[in-house]
């Protein structure tokens, strides 16, 4: 069994779909709808990675990333967005310590393989 992933997305169908996809890849999944809930979860337990949507209702994805990294700097956070590749967003996310950036416009198989690659690279970096 692979590790536990925290999925943060404010749209229920998206959350559920990611849950199913990751479960199919043998991950354990916990999902929340807001940045505030994500911070709470990260404080309570350890996750192998957080898959965090950029555009959230309430606290923004970037703000959530910043706060997670402040409290748990070792947490692997991967950003996901419907905006596609946006240089400004990518630069900002990297500055705040995210380990990868995925566009929802990519093919599903590509999204999963990128996700796995990012986790692998981030783990090696921590070692």
């Amino acid at each position, binding site marked *: 069994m692979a590790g536990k992933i925290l999925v943060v997305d404010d*749209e229920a*169908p*998206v959350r559920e*779909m*990611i849950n*199913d*996809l990751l479960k*199919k890849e043998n991950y354990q999944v916990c999902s929340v709808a807001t940045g505030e809930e994500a911070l709470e979860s990260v404080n309570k337990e350890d996750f192998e990675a957080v898959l965090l949507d950029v*555009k959230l209702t309430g606290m923004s994805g970037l703000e959530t990333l910043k706060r997670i990294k402040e409290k748990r700097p070792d947490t692997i956070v991967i950003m996901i*967005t*419907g*905006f*596609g*590749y*946006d*240089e*400004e967003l990518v630069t900002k996310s990297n500055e705040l310590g995210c380990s990868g950036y995925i*566009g*929802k*416009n990519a*093919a*599903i*198989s590509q999204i999963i393989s990128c996700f796995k690659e990012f986790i692998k690279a981030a783990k090696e970096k921590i070692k």
Partner: protein
Amino acid sequence: MEINSQAALTLNQKIIDEANVIMLYLDPQGIISMCNKKIEELIDKKKKELFGKHWLDILCHDSNIAAKQQMFKAVLDNSITYKRANIFEGSIVDFNKKEHIISWNITPMLNETEGLAGILLLGNDVTLLKEREASLKKIDETLMNILSSIKEYALYVINLKGNITYYEMGFEAMFGWKKSEIIFKDVGLLHTKDDTENKLPFALEQVKENGHYQLKLSLVKKDGRVFPVILSVNQFLDSDGNLIGYIFIAKDITEEEKLEYQVFQSEKMAAVGSLAAGLAHEINNPLFVVSGRLEMLLGNKKLNKHLKDSLKIIDGQADRIRTLVDRFLSFTRKTSPNLKNLDVNKIIKNVLPLLLYHKLPSHKIRIARDFAKRLPLIKGDAHQLQEVFINMFINACQEMPKGGTLKIKTDIVENKFVRISINDTGRGIAPENLKNLFMPFFSTKSEGTGLGLSICYNIIKSHDGTIEVESQLGEGTTFIVKLPFAKKGA
């Protein structure tokens, strides 16, 4: 009685001497037999010294005295023949060696038998008058020079019948007409038919009532090209204040309009860009769910063939939407170009072979290259610029389904831009479509997404360049891209 007549003579002499005019009386041969005192004020000679001398020898300062004599004779003969006074101009040098211009009034005095008895010369010193005239002429010339050097404006005057009676400033450069071709012609030649019938009569009515009127309209060059101007119209009055015509001053605002259009276009594109980004995001999220669910369903090995085929069709269509959104996002993308010093000629040369890979009637299209040698380098992203040029070349070729010439020219403008002109001999673009050409999803073709030119526009803009289009229906289209030179040492 004797005393009285003596007194009268003395008075006469006094009047003659005091008159503010040089008076000479000559015999028929031109010898001075009488003169007044006025001459003494001018030259350093007493009256008596002048008697018996030929007047031209003493009172005419001219290098070619023989010619002057001939001229004087001709004037005199004319006066005798027509029995009238004539004017002759000469000059006298005073005792300070200053030259005075004298206007001589020549009156022949005839005897009873109509023969010449003598010649009366009345001379007026017109030096000051001439100097003033010359300085006025100089002012006039300077004014004319100033007026004719103002090339951005054209001034023209019409009479009440609407005929052009005068023009100045940049008129010839602006319209292309020569004086002999346009003077006394109808002012309608300079205006569009519609303006001649509507805007112009209205403007003239306003000027009649209020003295002045300003409007924005289009004028017509000799070659038929129409250009925008700000036209200022004023009353033209005679010295009694009667209206005798109208004065027009036109300012060509082609460049201002271009700039205004670019600003408008740029603001419009920014608005469309943020709308597009938001819309793409809203489509991507549900599409992500649709595609994900489909992929999971398609992975189910128990699925019957009919259902699987249907799902594949849905997946294919979802892919189509994704491609469209991707393209849309690339229009709004905030990717800064990967800037390197580039040779535009080289980029175009690399792109041209790619044309063959597209379904174009290439065999019917001739490609004419006119590349400037030693073109300065520009700072740009090679991939992005290649995308721009291939897009524009394909567009140009598609405009010529029956074949034609694709002309690609590079040169330098304003000493700071490399200009790339891409000209086709195709159908041309209707004026109403020109203004929307760079808008996303705007297309005059049945194929394509209508995003190509809007992407080109954004790429060129991110290179600090400009992209413009000129087109005439039935004659073809020219796209003009300008890219700034790379800074030295950058």
